[in-house]
């Protein structure tokens, strides 16, 4: 296996300029994420966990410092290059599920494949991943609004995994679910991790964090 860390942060800061004064969301954060890790990022509200996750996911660029994804520096990349990195290497799971309401469940899962290949013959792969998420075939053609929270989150995980990314980033994946459903979702993520996916998850629920093998604590934008 590749020894190179999948993610490396070097002195990464993020400062939001506001009229009332600059807000330092991340303050000279240095960390590494190795392939196959399962990491929980914990910390109080406003501590900078989400900013950290956005940086990991190439959704936001640092004000200063360097970020390497599998050894490749991402600051200075064009918007198109960053977008392609997100599409091909990273899977996102959100607290709000964030499925596209216009598309059926299976179309939501197909969407990233179509973005990559430009072709619409991707249904088989989508169905395969959805079945692995223990989703019933009858639900495939349903719109997101017709699904329960747990079902929506499984569809969202299927969407995140469909392009076989190296890194799965989850922002409070169980935050909108009841405990039982949340635990089922965590089982799925743990299973993915056992199969080799690197998972980084933001949470403030210690029961959820217990699934992770390492915890990074963020307080006031610094790794505590």
């Amino acid at each position: 296996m590749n020894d190179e860390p999948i993610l490396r942060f070097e002195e990464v800061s993020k400062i939001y300029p506001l009229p009332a004064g600059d807000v330092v969301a991340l303050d000279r954060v240095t960390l590494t994420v190795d392939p196959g890790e399962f990491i929980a990022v914990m910390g109080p509200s406003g501590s900078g966990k989400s900013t950290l996750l956005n940086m990991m996911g190439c959704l936001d660029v640092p004000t200063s410092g360097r970020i390497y994804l599998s050894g490749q520096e991402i600051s200075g990349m064009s918007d198109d290059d960053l977008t392609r990195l997100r599409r091909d290497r990273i899977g996102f799971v959100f607290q709000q599920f964030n499925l596209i309401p216009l598309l059926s469940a299976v179309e939501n899962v197909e969407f990233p494949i179509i973005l990559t290949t430009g072709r619409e013959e991707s249904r088989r792969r989508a169905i395969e991943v959805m079945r692995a998420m223990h989703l019933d075939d009858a639900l495939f053609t349903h719109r997101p609004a017709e699904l329960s929270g747990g079902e929506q989150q499984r569809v969202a995980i299927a969407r995140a995994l469909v392009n076989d990314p190296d890194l799965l980033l989850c922002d409070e994946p169980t935050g909108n679910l009841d405990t039982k459903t949340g635990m089922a979702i965590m089982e799925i993520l743990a299973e993915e991790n056992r199969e080799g996916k690197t998972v980084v998850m933001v949470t403030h629920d210690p029961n959820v964090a217990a699934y992770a093998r390492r915890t990074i604590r963020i307080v006031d934008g610094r790794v505590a």
Partner: protein
Amino acid sequence: MFFSFAARNLRRHWVRSGLSIIGIVIGVVAIASMGVMASSINLLAANIITDVGDTVVVTPHTAIGGTFAGDPRTAVDAAIPAREVEEIRRAANPHRTIPVLQGADEIEFGRGESGYAQIIGLAPDDIPVLLDLAEGQHLRQNQAGALVGIHLAREYGIAPGSRIVIGGEDVRVAGVLAERGMGFDINPDYAIVVSDGWYESHFGAKDSYPLVIVRVGDVDEIDAVKDAIESRINRREEVVDVADSREMLGQYEEIYDQITLFLLGIGGIALVVAAVNILNVMYISVTERIREIGVMRSIGALRREILRMFLYEAVILGVIGSVVGGILSTAFGYLISVAAIEVATAGTTFGENFTVFDQSAVGFIVFGMAFGIATSIAAGFYPAWKASHLAPVDAMRQR
């Protein structure tokens, strides 16, 4: 994929989409049918105005100015005295100078019908120079007879040999004149032409004429003839107005061009309103879906793909609106033109075989449709561009 996205989104908000399509339809119909109408008016005018390019028309100078030959305001008040007609004849020599007498009287026809008609008095040997016959014979010198304009003849069933009564005097119809159209000199289609001798014996001796026509053989000599008349008659003061049909035709064309522009302008305004509506609809669509755009961007949709998705929406609205508008304006433009021609040619035979849809009418419809699609895309571009340039993180934070 992005096309189907756009279509689905439009279907999801079908009332909103429908309303903006109606806006474009109205715009396209307005611009196309106005264009068709303008081109029909133009065609009709070109059809009925006889271009007598080799004619100079001399009328008494009036303070009103810029009126046309036969304008009742000039015909009633002013006339050119006989001695000035001689001056004109000398100035225009060797071209033929034709003084015209014009009046009106009550006419009775064989079937007991009666009405008023214009009576034009001309020297018998001038008549063949100016007018063609449809049937019968021209007037001979010192012959009491009349030539009848074709519309009058058709309306009252007059043929050569018929007898009509002009102001109580019984006259034999020698011939029927060929259709001439709206000229800048005289309009005989609805008139009766008699010899100047008969005219004077009927209306009394005339020593002045409301109109003098100079027939110039060569178009290139028109300006020289005009100058000669002007310098001879108008030396001390403006006594007569000298005009030729070319410049009058030019004036008509200018007027019709302005009508066309005006009508297209009205259509254009309707389309601008439709464009603002599309802009508004697209803007709402972008604002509503800002979070969705953020999600798409975060899972790997490129900026240009987002741009394309929203532009498709504008294109779909524009194409549907323009096609429906094109179909409607074909029907609508046809009806408008038929009605316009009906009104413009009421009581005449002009435009009977007139085709409403010529190339330029079809051109206006195509132009209206193209303009509708282009306007929709232009209106959709800014919201689409804005959507594509949202930062994914900011977009997803929106509720």
